[in-house]
């Protein structure tokens, strides 16, 4: 198990480097010009100098190497400096946004909490709703509840967040006026009333993201339970005289969670992807919105860094899913 984890971690390093290279090459292929936003009145020689100042005159491999060093070597130093008050990163060049001329990671650190609040909360809500739904619709297969659940999850599956987003805004914010349509990032939770306000402004984006997650997870949960209900050990458990609630919620559920947990872990990065759009719709200034803005502004270092963070999440979640799998299922020993 330990060996397996170490091996997977070792493989993850070249994987991530290759991913970052691919992202870098794709971005450098894109026909864009970071100077496009600069007014026409600026003379070409000045533009050229500005380009060089951004490091654009150098060959691609130098640019890539610089990014690698900045992201993997200098940024961690900044991180350590911040928490331990050390001076490792003094005067070293960090990954700088072309758009704001500020370090990309500073913006990420500023915006990440908003994204996490919305994304994490929506995922927790999705899991909490979908697991009971999955169990019940499997246990009462082909019942009215199951059929209705199947219909609703199919709808939730197939309608993308950019449609459900405006839809819930129209229904809950415009017509019913229950919740605000935008998310106020500057809002601080200090007492009960402000906490309620926070909950209310989170409600719509969380709802939109949770619809998607619930649809997926409850489907997986249902089929995992169905697979296990036919297993011999379920009959053994019943033959022992155990009650249905113990048979289902202990014996069957524990086995069914094995595939579902991995799906939950693997889908988390996808939810981040969905958050990019949802954040845009609800004006949450999280990292999803940051990415969109960076794309509009041709801000390559920011795009590169954010895309890489998403890739890192996917690889990391994959690893966590596999390790969880082995922990939950005593039969799996990666040796």
């Amino acid at each position: 198990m330990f060996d397996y984890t170490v091996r997977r971690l070792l493989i993850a390093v070249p994987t991530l480097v290759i991913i970052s290279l691919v992202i870098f090459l794709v971005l450098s292929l894109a026909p864009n010009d970071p100077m496009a936003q600069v007014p026409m009145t600026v003379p070409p020689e000045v533009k050229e100098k500005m380009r060089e100042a951004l490091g654009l005159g150098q060959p691609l491999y130098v640019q890539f190497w610089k990014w690698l060093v900045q992201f993997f070597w200098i940024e961690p130093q900044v991180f350590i400096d911040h928490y331990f008050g050390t001076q490792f990163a003094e005067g070293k060049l960090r990954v700088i946004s072309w758009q704001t001329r500020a370090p990309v990671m500073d913006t990420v650190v500023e915006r990440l909490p908003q994204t996490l609040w919305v994304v994490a909360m929506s995922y927790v809500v999705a899991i909490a709703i979908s697991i009971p739904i999955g169990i019940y619709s499997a246990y009462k297969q082909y019942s009215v509840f199951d059929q209705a659940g199947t219909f609703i999850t199919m709808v939730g599956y197939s309608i993308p967040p950019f449609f459900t987003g405006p839809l819930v805004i129209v229904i809950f914010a415009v017509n019913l006026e229950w919740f605000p349509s935008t998310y106020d990032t500057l809002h601080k939770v200090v007492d009960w009333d402000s906490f309620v306000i926070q909950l209310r402004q989170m409600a719509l984006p969380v709802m939109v993201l949770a619809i998607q997650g619930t649809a997926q997870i409850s489907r997986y949960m249902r089929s995992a339970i169905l697979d296990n209900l036919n297993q011999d050990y379920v009959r053994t458990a019943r033959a022992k005289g155990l009650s249905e609630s113990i048979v289902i919620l202990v014996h069957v559920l524990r086995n069914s969670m094995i595939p579902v947990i991995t799906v939950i872990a693997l889908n988390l990065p996808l939810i981040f992807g969905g958050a990019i759009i949802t954040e845009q719709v609800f004006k949450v200034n999280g990292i999803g919105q940051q990415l969109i803005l960076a794309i509009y502004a041709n801000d390559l270092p920011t795009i590169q860094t954010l895309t890489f963070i998403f890739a890192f999440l996917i690889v990391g979640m994959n690893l966590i899913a596999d390790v969880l799998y082995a922990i939950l299922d005593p039969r799996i020993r990666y040796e």
Partner: protein
Amino acid sequence: MGSERKPIVKMDELKVVFQTKLGSVTGVENLSFSIFPGETVCLVGESGSGKSVSSLALMRLIEFDGGNIESGKVLFSSESMSDKDLIKESQRDMRNIRGNEIGMVFQEPMTALNPVFTISRQLTEGLRIHKGLSKNAAQKEALELLKKVRIPEPERRLKQFPHQLSGGMRQRIVIAMALACEPKLLIADEPTTALDVTIQAEILSLLNRLKKETGAAVLFITHDMSVVAQIADRVVVMYHGRKVEEGDVYKIFNNPEQDYTKKLLSSVPKLGAMVGKKFPEAMKLDSSQDADPIPIKGTNEPLLEVKNLTTRFPVTGGVLRKKVANLHAVEDVSFTLNKGQTFSLVGESGCGKTTVARSILRLEEAMSGQVLMNGVDVLKQSKAEMLKQRLNMQMVFQDPYGSLNPVMQLFDQVAEPLLNFKMAKGADLNKRVANLFDRVRLPQSFLTRYPHELSGGQRQRVAIARAIALNPKLVILDEAVSALDVSVQASVLNLLLELQVELELSYLFVSHDMAVVERVSHFIGVMYLGRMVEIGDRKAIFENPNHPYTKALMKAVPVADPNRRNKIDDLKFKPISSPIHSLEHIPDASSYSEIKRGHFVLTNELGYS
């Protein structure tokens, strides 16, 4: 049987119906029988005869499998209740009976236990519910139970998970679970079918001993008449959901009344049926068949010579997945198969017999040794040569459900090898495939069907047709009849013997079933822990077994005769030593002593005595 005694279970006119998409199907009808205290009643019948359905109906578990008890009574009596009709009980009340008054053991020890919970947890569950024991008290009791079913190192087993135990040990755990609350009735549904013969013998004698110790009655469900003969007091024969015949075990075996019972008994391959016959021959399935079957002589010309075959599988470990040990699956095995004859490889699961077969076909790469097919070393052939060589060697696998592609029509599956080797096309192909279907006695209407529309025996016939499509010289039969019902098994065996004569086939027959092996073989090799421990002609192996393992194997085979019951001590539990050795380990070459001409016994020490 004492009729004045009160039966524990009195089943009366039971009828179970299943609702399917095509309407209702009757699982069991008109079934009545009784079980008295302390007796073993065997429900016997082929698959689909409704024997499991009736036991699940007794437990009222059939409702969970989509069955519906339409009519009938199941009167249950014990100290706490008298003539209680279980059919009328609520599921809540049934829970107090299940596991408490009636225990149940299932067929598949591999899947009957929950894989994610420890043995201790699964054993104590019932005790805590029915007996209201505390966690600690239940654990103590669980340990006692494990001792009762004679599991080696019981303390360690409690903390283990099911996958860490062998099949035999798991079945002991399941039995311990069923006996946890000292039930009055133990239902055992094919408890030994999935086990090796030696383990089967141990489990049977364990059940016999436990029955004596606890005084519980046993309802034993099986398709195997030999097992019935070993364990039953009374027998209920079932066919198509109805009772065919009921009676004392001696009466059923000595004077069967119904034709079906007679047919069932005659298709059981009996160990010792071939004594005095030099060559294998087809089984007489029908008493009306006058002509004696013709013995199959074959030739003395070697077709396949296997010399010092060794196959090892690497065991990897560590961060870099280096090879850390070797699994010695096949170790220095040699034998010869003559043209038109059958060589059988026998042994328990994990002894390497299948690996030998697969190494010959080069489905696994052997480490060293020679496999000479007509004098050509198969192991040294290039990929292209090997492809041609496969024309001569074909294989039939054990599982008729898994070995056919579920989405291909049967015609295409049988035609595939012919197309692969460009042997036929167009009208010629159609004719050849149709011929093959005639050969294996399948109706031509099956050509356009799909595998799921066929029974197990019919599927195995398709697999045989596919194997003989290329006119091979060698057919490897890997447990080819093990998964079939006895009557089907007998007819498939007869078909194989018939084809052997007509097509001059040589068979390498891999099996764990000694009675079947006796029927078909010219020569036999007994394998244990990757080695060939004894080799010789059929007569030598069956009538004069020399190696202790061969002897144990022979003794463990259940005999379909209630007068000859095995007396095996279930204490004689012998864990097979591990075939995994370190990289440095160089095993000795196999050395044999010749008992008689052509009869060799291994002299190497394998830890079996």
